[in-house]
């Protein structure tokens, strides 16, 4: 990472630690939008961190993507990852990056583009109620919509983040889809955020077993606990590497980016399941309480792994792709992904 990249990562880490303390996190879970956190993120330029070219700051893409991992480290209850990736695609498509939160409406959501605009309905749109703009994909095109949509509050995911019903009928600015699809873009940012959340899960668990004393010794002195921690660290490392695989492919505009994303979503989903089980086991009852921060991360992981394509959908997609190959072709396929 370059010096500016490291500085940016550091500043973002501090900003999030400051603005997403326990009180803000609890309030967000009751539906209170963390305005101060959003403003601070905007002031720092986060919504533009992935935008390349004259509308952005020219942060290397890999370093920008690392910031999404940092958002995951704090389970930030804002549509920042959505806005960052949407803005990147908007700029790449030659459209003008809008102000405020943007959310993604992937292909097949129920909204279609026509010559004069977009119409239809989409379910469980992330942060629909807070979005100032929608990025819609249909038929190889994307469209930016800043007015002409209605939102009905539909509910939340398991981590209490809004997932709403959006109804659209109005004019849009349209451009050909650049690079990957919106579903893949959304899946990529979820993969990165999950890798970040898993890092925190490991840190919380290590801290807990080092402090908690039972039978006169810290829990970490027991070999059974050490081995469970080693497994946890292994799963988190796998998730992190899988996220890197997808991010590296995207940053290099590799034609295999969708495959790398499918692999990341598949592996991270499995890692999350295993890691959550271990983290809760080692935290004992305290981790199962509403009070404890552990559950912000477990609920975010449970939710994120099935958003922008469920885990099983991505796994099957990767399997279909793999099964196109003969036994001679499969290994070259594997090495082509990274």
């Amino acid at each position, binding site marked *: 990472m370059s010096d500016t990249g490291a500085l940016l990562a550091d500043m973002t880490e501090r900003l999030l630690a400051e603005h997403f303390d326990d009180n803000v996190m609890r309030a967000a879970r009751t539906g209170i939008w963390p305005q101060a956190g959003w403003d601070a993120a905007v002031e720092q330029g986060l919504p533009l961190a992935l935008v390349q070219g004259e509308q952005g700051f020219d942060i290397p893409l890999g370093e920008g993507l690392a910031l999404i991992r940092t958002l995951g480290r704090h389970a930030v209850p804002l549509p920042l990852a959505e806005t960052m990736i949407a803005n990147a695609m908007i700029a790449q498509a030659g459209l003008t990056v809008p102000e405020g939160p943007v959310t993604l409406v992937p292909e097949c959501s129920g909204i279609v583009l026509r010559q004069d605009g977009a119409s239809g309905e989409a379910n469980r749109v992330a942060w629909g109620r807070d979005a100032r703009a929608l990025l819609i994909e249909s038929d190889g095109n994307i469209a930016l919509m800043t007015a002409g949509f209605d939102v009905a509050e539909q509910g939340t995911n398991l981590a209490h983040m809004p997932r709403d019903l959006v109804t659209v009928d109005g004019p849009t600015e349209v451009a050909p889809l650049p690079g990957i699809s919106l579903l893949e873009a959304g899946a990529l940012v979820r993969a990165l955020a999950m890798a970040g959340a898993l*890092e925190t899960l*490991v*840190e919380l668990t*290590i801290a807990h*077993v*080092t402090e908690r004393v039972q039978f006169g010794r810290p829990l*970490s002195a027991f*070999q059974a*606990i*050490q*081995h469970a*921690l*080693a*497994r946890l*660290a*292994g799963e*988190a*490392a*796998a998730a*992190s*590497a*899988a996220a*890197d*695989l997808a991010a*590296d492919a995207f940053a*290099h505009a590799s034609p295999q980016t969708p495959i*790398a994303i*499918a*692999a*990341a979503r*598949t*592996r991270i989903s*499995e890692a999350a399941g295993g890691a959550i089980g271990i983290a809760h086991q080692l935290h004992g009852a305290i981790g199962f309480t509403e009070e404890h921060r552990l559950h912000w991360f477990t609920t975010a992981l449970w939710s994120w792994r099935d958003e922008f394509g469920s885990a*099983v959908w*991505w*796994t*099957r*997609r*990767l*399997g*279909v*792709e*793999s*099964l*196109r*190959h*003969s*036994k001679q072709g*499969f*290994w*070259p396929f*594997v*090495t082509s*992904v*990274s």
Partner: protein
Amino acid sequence: MLRFPSPPRHNAAEQLRGEVREFLSSAIATRTPLQRAESWNGFDRDFSKALGARGWLGMTWPKQYGGHERSAFERYVVVEETLAAGAPVSAHWIAERQSGPTLLKFGTEQQREEILPRIAAGDCVFCIGMSEPDSGSDLAATRTRAERVESGWRVTGTKLWTTNAHKADYMILFCRTSGTPADRHKGTSQLLIDMRGTEGMTVRPVLDLAGQHHFNEVHFNDAFVPETALIGTEGAGWNQVMSELAFERSGPERFLSSIQLLLELIEALRGSDSELAQITIGRLTAHLLTLRQLSRGVAALLEAREDASTHAAIVKDLGATFEQDLPEIARSLIDAEPDRQSTRDLLAVLAYTMMSAPSFSLRGGTREILRGIIARGLGVR
């Protein structure tokens, strides 16, 4: 939190990949799938020499010792391509992977000059003399002793599970040169044993579960070893052997040794519209891609000369689990009996891999020992 660096995009390595594939497609064209599945244990000195002649062994070592001063990534490409193709690597790879690097790091000038060029040429087989009947996981309990005598050492003791001792030119012996097993790490050393000309040493075969002869019991009965056999510093054996184990655990062999079974499974299910097959193969592919990313991250750490022992332990632990799952998963998708004599490649490969699988989480350090190492790396031990 342990971070694995992303491997850099390396053009020289990718170009080399094409050359290695081309070489392998003719060099091992006649090997059957079952023989390819035996890659780890496939012993073929001619193949090893051919690889050496191409400059693909000892690739990262100084030219002065027969090396080629290439990057860890280029070496990685050669190792993974030979394994993915199911090439017979057994005659060179212990030497190339760990014995050579140990000599390079700790050996005397004479040892380096004599032996490293031969390893790089693919013409020198090594075996590892670490484990003993009473010292497996607890390596520091080693009881084999070397007593100082005039102009050398007298070695007494028994090594066990020594892969290829019956075919090797040399062994790196881990033994006690002072004190008692109660002194643990102190007083241990490494000696270079000539497997051809050492009197008082006997090698007895130990057959594995499949009835095959790979490992051995090696007895030393007052065997004389010259002074020049000492590797590194007397008494510093423990640190040396730990450094050697880091080499042993870090490579792609830790998840590619049963790749042939995955390839046969993919061939058998090719184009299948079974949802179960698609999801299962998708999961395995995701694991493989991730393991490769992790393992190439270890290569990046090695290239930067950073300590990678905890990272390597994670890759080996995850890799062994992946490999051990493979035969069970294959069984859940294929309605047939595993059979080593079968003319159906998948069934023969399945039988072979199933019979090897228990060793995946033993060889090179058991799962429990690796998890202890990882826990220490996390700072909780």
